[in-house]
């Protein structure tokens, strides 16, 4: 399987509609910059994960859409910052020129901060205080020093250096895993799920997130830019998972992580089949 599962479209449309409602492609430059990266064609795996988890916990996907959109905006903000010259200096993102190349570095930075704030505001407005508080707490953890920011900081220091496997894991956990876990937990929380299913879905997302990142590393080595929308070998100066395990080993461990993720879904039975499809997609993805 190389394409996203068929059911993705239904969820992507809902999230995309919400994002289009929140973002203005015809607004001021900074607003256009915000919409430019966020509304660019993408898989929206994190947002779909949030909606699936909400449904799995017997909630309404519609209720989880604001949370999913917020997570997608946080993710877009992280991509904008990640591509900056002072960071990864990437020219291509989601099949388009990187945000800072399209709007300038200053606007790109502002767009990223704008997306972050819009995400928190979206959650605050969409949910009752108790739920909003829990989800913003999750997002704060996912973005902060233990999440995206911490992972990115470590990643920057790792360029042209041999890093340990544990450091690489911390980078991946921060840059990818944290938002996967937050997406799954946020979706379940919007459905009013108890702690145990939330914990099971968090375990699913944690393993899936690392598998996703390992496959990312693989695609960086041998992917098709036309499919991935990114420059191949962009991470050549970095230590990646492939550095430790080789291509075949990385694919094997990614598959095992996806299998482990599936085991976390045991309590949910057949109702979790779409999440199993998602993990199967991650294990086999080519884009």
């Amino acid at each position, binding site marked *: 399987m190389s394409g996203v599962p068929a059911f993705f479209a239904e969820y992507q449309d809902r999230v995309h509609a919400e994002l289009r409602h929140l973002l203005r492609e015809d607004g001021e430059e900074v607003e256009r910059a915000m919409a430019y990266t966020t509304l660019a064609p993408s898989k929206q795996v994190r947002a779909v994960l949030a909606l699936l988890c909400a449904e799995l916990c017997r909630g309404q996907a519609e209720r989880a859409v604001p949370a999913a959109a917020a997570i997608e905006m946080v993710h877009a903000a992280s991509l904008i910052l990640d591509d900056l010259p002072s960071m990864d200096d990437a020219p291509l993102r989601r099949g388009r020129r990187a945000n800072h190349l399209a709007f300038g570095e200053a606007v790109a930075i502002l767009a990223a901060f704008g997306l972050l704030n819009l995400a928190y505001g979206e959650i605050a407005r969409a949910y009752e205080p108790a739920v909003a508080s829990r989800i913003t707490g999750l997002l704060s953890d996912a973005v902060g020093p233990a999440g995206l920011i911490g992972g990115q900081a470590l990643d920057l220091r790792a360029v042209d250096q041999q890093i340990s496997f544990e450091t690489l894991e911390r980078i991946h956990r921060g840059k990818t895993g944290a938002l996967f876990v937050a997406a799954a937990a946020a979706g379940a929380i919007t459905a009013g799920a108890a*702690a145990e299913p939330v914990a099971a879905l968090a375990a699913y997302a944690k393993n899936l997130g690392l598998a996703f990142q390992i496959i990312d590393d693989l695609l960086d080595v041998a992917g098709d830019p036309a499919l991935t929308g990114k420059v191949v070998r962009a991470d050549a100066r970095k230590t990646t998972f492939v550095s430790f395990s080789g291509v075949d080993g990385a694919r094997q461990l990614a598959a095992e992580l996806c299998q*482990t993720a599936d085991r976390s879904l045991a309590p949910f039975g057949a109702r979790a089949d779409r999440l199993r499809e998602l993990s199967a997609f991650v294990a086999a993805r080519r884009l």
Partner: protein
Amino acid sequence: MITPPDPRIDDLRQRLRSLGYLEAGVDRFVLSGAAHTGGPLAFAARASARVGLLGGALLGPAGALGLGARLPGLVSGPRDAAVLSIYLAVFFFVAVSAAAFAAGAIAASVAPRADGRFAARARRLSSAAGILAAACLGYLTLWWRNANAGFGWSAPVWTAFALLVAVTISLLLGHAVRIATLGVLATSAGPSAAIPPVTSLSWPLSIGIGLFAFAGAAVLLIISAPSASGAAPPALTVVSTGTRVRLIALDGFDMASYLNSEQGASRFSSAMHGAALLHVQDTGDPARAWTTVATGVPPERHGVRGIQARRVAGVRGILSRGSGDMAELLGAATDVLRLTRPGLTSREERRVKTFWEAASAAGLRTAVVNWWATWPAAGSAIVVSDRAMVRLERGGALDAEIAPASLYEDLRRAWPAIRQRAEKTAAEAFPYVGDARMRAALQRSAALDVTVLEILRALPGPPRDLDVVYLPGLDIAQHALLASDAPGSPAASALTARIAAIGAYYEFLQQLVEPLLAEGGDVMTIVLTQPGRVATPTDGHLAALGSPGQPAPRATGSALDVAPTLLYALGMPLSRELPGAPLQDLFTSPFVQRHAARYVSTYGAPANGPAAREGKPLDQEMIDRLRSLGYVK
């Protein structure tokens, strides 16, 4: 072609595990049933029920094995073991569930809600639990060595094995309780709490550990079960004395009363005058006392503690009260739950061979009639058990009342004649007892004694080396006439009349037994008396008539000497496990000189061969009968 494993991948896999990956993060067995449950207490209840199921499935069968090994008579077959397993599984399910629920509820109430010390407190709780577990294991070690000190299983290797099994069970259940508790903590603290990592324990691993623990417990319990001797019994060689022995056991015999009612010279009279004295006898319970006589060992060793026992619903075996703390505890628990009903003691409780079983095992032909605790009868030797008369009265398929089973039809055919003779003899026996109620009581006892002796006479086959018969009539009559629950004392005249009636029974008994004593030839008749159910313990007597017996009025012994005396007369080697010794004064000097006592280390454990149990058990009928005779209240 098989690709060799890549060590790099294995290393990375391990490192990923240490970082919390490749773990499903959910114990499917313990927690899956609690998914979608709101609130910590509801979560604790559902998760605890799963843990309880694990505890019940594991400890129920192991507990049944243990009880079966420690309480002889309770488990009479696989069906009993299965029923007991179910009872204990339910018990352990409730107990373990309650413990797991309590652990979860306490943890949920103690742990702060969603503050930063959540994980630290959880770790402290785990540490405290670990210390407690270590202390428990220390205690278990000491207990094991103490409890098995007499059975040779306190050696370090077995103690270590026992501890290994205990640790395995503890870890399995402890792990399950821990998972449930952490789940409860997480439910009450919210998803932002830093929950300590929970190792995934999948079904196959749980089952594997459980099977190991169960198998280990089973091996330990079976191997460490108390037994009379671990050694295989040696072959028993009989050096024939040329003597056949007949034992007539009279219950309720009081020498002073007999002498007061003595009616002239007779063989019985001369036997009683020349009887050896058996010092103070057990008068608390006839089943216990007569089993002591039959086995030659005290009740602590033979295991029969009393007539009354408890029968656990659905279990064919019985639970004998008074046979230790475990039996008392189990009996009290099942009584509270209304799971028990009255039962009677049985052969299955007995842990030591009787003298007739030892003789039969040595190849001698034996028969026993109406002795206590002989049901269910099994084996090829003749046993007309204490339930046989009820079966012969009621008919129907045999429920091991008589062995061998083929004997049942012979006795069924003879039964009408036996009863007719018994009733006729009893009806004619007491013409001078004026009080109708007293006469009826005497006649009832007389009919019983006559029936027992008639059964003995009706036994087919060649002459036997050993006949044993128990006559309860005197004790029953005495109990019916003298025992009273009414307040106050009976009038002196009434008491005199009752004593006179008992004197009449002594006279009847003497006449009843006299023909047996007249048999000469190679038969030596031994008369054994016990005081019966009396408030003040008194002495018993043992008399020998016929060659090579002789009067021994100055000889003394105890109930423990009866079995060695009888076995000695038969030329059997004596087990060194018997605390008593043969009363050689009851034998002529030439006999004693010719036949020195020989010894073997043991007679071995009683054989528990299959009994012919096809008919409806007569438990209730026996209880009613014994109640009407004053044995059961």
